[in-house]
């Protein structure tokens, strides 16, 4: 049986919290200040997440020094507040934060603890706004109780849009990007900006992130908005954000999914071309991408020839669509020997994934419990989870679905590199 080095967890529930999503939404918005109405530990978790992102940028050579980082202040709920309530603590925390940091606006994220205690954070925010004369907004979420990271991210966007956007004259070439996906200098953002540039469009903002109040104000001047990228799970919330902008500010939302893999990106370009009235440019871009990818993959099949390759999936369909991985094999003619569904999937998640795979490929699918033989014989495994050392060569698939064809190129490059090695684990 394939055992994970890091034991496979069956993730039955969402594994995140709204607070870091709220923080991340405005973490680099000039003038923002975030307060977590929570115990101290929640701040550590968010700080760790942010720090990890900054080192990821450093390791991938897109770290940019300078820039604004919003102060993150923790009200510091303790056991005594579970009896007497924490509203007064929050009031004092807001006062101290305004006096110290002079923010342009404050966003308050309530924790599960304040949710259970029943603190009325919105009422406290309204009071503070009157007192200090700056926007003080509180989310309606309570930590993990009311959603996950993306719920919080959306909630922050909703609050900012309500407060700062204003009606503008439309700029026909301006496109507002929705979502973060590693920030403005990350490869995904650069890839999508390049695609838009090829269509003669100017990308603007990363709403609700990386935006000053002045930039947010002119978002309604955009010809339309679109989501930068992500998984189906995050798409729900980014779509909701785009739909909100459309309803309230008459900024059309391009609901064409994400450009992932060659077929996905081509399809996305075609839809976008039709949506923006730039069909010719989008077709040219798609053709160029096709040539670029196939040229880059010309030697791929030969390089991995003879390798018994498996795809192991342990993430649910909401978080992982295998299409772009399977596409690499169909594009190049390289054989994919089988697909193993890992035990980290619940029965229901496994069923959803099986139905999805049936639409995408005829490759045989195995359950982990019966896959010992194929796993033992495998030379190379593309996997969403680290597996036991008996599988010699492993490529760990990224948690965030890569935008455009860059993910396919990176995967192919690393597979070729891995094929030359005797074993080990490589993170794509």
């Amino acid at each position, binding site marked *: 049986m394939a055992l*994970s*080095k*890091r*034991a496979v*967890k069956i*993730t*039955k*529930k*969402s*594994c*995140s*919290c709204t607070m870091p999503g709220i923080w991340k939404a405005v973490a680099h918005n000039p003038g923002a200040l975030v307060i977590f109405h*929570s*115990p*101290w*530990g*929640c*701040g*550590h*978790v*968010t*700080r*760790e997440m942010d*720090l*990890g992102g*900054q*080192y990821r940028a*450093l390791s991938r050579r897109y*770290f940019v*020094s*300078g*820039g604004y*980082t919003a*102060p*993150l*202040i*923790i*009200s*510091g*709920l*303790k*056991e005594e507040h*579970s009896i007497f309530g924490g509203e007064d603590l929050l009031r*004092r*925390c807001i006062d*101290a*934060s305004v006096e*110290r*940091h002079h923010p342009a606006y404050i966003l308050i994220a309530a924790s*599960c*603890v304040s*949710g*259970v*205690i029943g603190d009325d954070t919105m009422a406290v925010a309204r009071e503070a706004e009157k007192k200090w004369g700056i926007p003080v907004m509180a989310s309606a979420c309570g*930590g*993990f*109780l*009311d959603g996950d990271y993306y719920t919080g991210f959306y909630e922050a966007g909703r609050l900012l849009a309500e407060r700062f956007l204003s009606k503008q004259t439309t700029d026909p070439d301006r496109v507002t990007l929705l979502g973060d996906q590693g920030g403005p200098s990350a490869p995904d953002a650069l890839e999508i900006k390049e695609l838009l540039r090829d269509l003669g469009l100017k990308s603007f903002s990363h709403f609700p992130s990386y935006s000053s109040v002045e930039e947010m104000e002119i978002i309604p001047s955009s010809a339309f908005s679109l989501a930068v990228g992500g998984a189906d799970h995050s798409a729900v919330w980014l779509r909701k954000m785009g739909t909100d902008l459309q309803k309230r500010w008459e900024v059309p939302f391009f609901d064409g999914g994400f450009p992932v893999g060659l077929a996905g990106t081509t399809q996305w370009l075609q839809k976008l071309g039709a949506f923006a009235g730039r069909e010719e440019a989008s077709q040219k871009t798609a053709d160029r991408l096709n040539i670029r990818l196939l040229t880059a993959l010309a030697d791929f099949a030969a390089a991995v020839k003879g390798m018994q390759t498996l795809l192991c999936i342990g993430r649910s369909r909401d978080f992982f669509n295998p299409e772009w991985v399977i596409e690499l094999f169909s594009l190049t003619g390289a054989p994919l020997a089988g697909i193993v569904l890992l035990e980290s999937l619940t029965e229901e998640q496994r069923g959803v994934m099986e139905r999805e795979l049936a639409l995408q490929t005829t490759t045989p699918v195995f359950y982990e419990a019966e896959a010992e033989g194929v796993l033992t014989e495998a030379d190379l495994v593309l996997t969403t989870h680290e597996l036991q050392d008996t599988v010699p060569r492993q490529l760990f698939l990224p948690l965030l679905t890569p935008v455009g064809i860059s993910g396919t190129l990176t995967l192919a490059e690393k597979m070729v590199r891995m094929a030359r090695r005797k074993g080990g684990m490589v993170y794509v």
Partner: protein
Amino acid sequence: MCKDRWEDVNYRVDTCALTGAAAFFAGIPDAVLVANGPLWCYFYALRHLEKTFSDMGRRYYCTQTDGQAVIHGTEGLLRETLEAVRTQYSPAVMLVENSCAIGLIGDDTGGIVREAQLSWPTICLDTGGLAGGFGEGYRAAAKAYFARLPLTKSRVVEPGSVNLLGCTAAYFNGRNDIQELKRLLTLAGYRVLACPGAGSRVEDIAGMAAAELNIVVHRELGGELAELLWNQQGIPYIAPGIPYGLDGSQAWLESIRERVIPRESSGNQLNRELSDLRCHLQAVSLELQLLWGEIHFSQTLVAGPFSAATGIARALQEEWADTGALTVVVRESLPCGDMSILTGDLLDGSADGAIVTERLSRLGGGLLMGSSNEKMLLLRRGITEVAYRHISLPVHDEALIGDGPFVGLRGAAVVQEQLWNRYIDLCQGRGISSK
């Protein structure tokens, strides 16, 4: 008087009590842990611990509570998880720790565990963020452990034997430090009976009452436990700090020798090693000084857990370098009223963010001994002409594979080597850099 704590969390990287409590039990190899809370909190504790405990993912479970569980209780989820443990393990002890929201809803976790009729002792604790940080969680877990599995009263003292309290492999380089402390004590002729929360199995811990002395290593973790074991078991204790540097190690051993006579007169080997190492380090340093001059910095900032940061700062000043103006930033809240330290400023990372910012902003040409967090604060400000050395978590930009400790005799050589190399780098214009 204690200060208000509304500082930017950028300067605070202390984990919550959930991680601290889990760290104590993670340090007991035959223990299993269950987090009764949401996956988000659990994953952060797990990620923190599995950097040191590679088997953590297998023996640390989570009930995966959601909003519904907060309304209807966690009983079903906890029962399900206990069943999973029962089918996979037969641990010597188990921790069930409630996250903060779950602690608040008042589930009778102890009752649910009793009903499950497990064949091993189980300790139930509320250890979420409401309970405090890493230290609070670790201390609460340690006390709860000894309340549930008390040592036998009638103890026969084994001469020359000691226990180490307040150690954890969940601190940066903690595992190597623990090994060096044990090696040092063994070389000095002592027998180390147990290190609860730092590698000893339940059976070893049960035998620790035979020790002549408890030695507190990290005061913020082991101080209260030492007091408890003194009151309950009559085991005397000392808290001599952490043996950083050669002189520091010698002084540490001396303070133990004042209380406990070694079992064997094997001190010769220790003395020989000490004297050989002293000669070697001196020779290497003098050779390097001829070319590079003595190690000196205009400013030094040391950041980490209380005992490690203050201990390293002291050794820096007394043995390793000319530190210039010295600032020590401790992770956890400072004990109010207890501000005694060496010649330098002692800051509270949770309350003195503005001063820490100011000190970091003028650290150019100086030395930073801290974590990836302080380093990133410098990088974001574009301050790169700084010599840098990790001494505390979180660490995102260095591999720790070897067995070199920071403490003891071997640690003195390791740190001195690193300081020289970082200083030579700095002299050549190679400080920390984002490129």
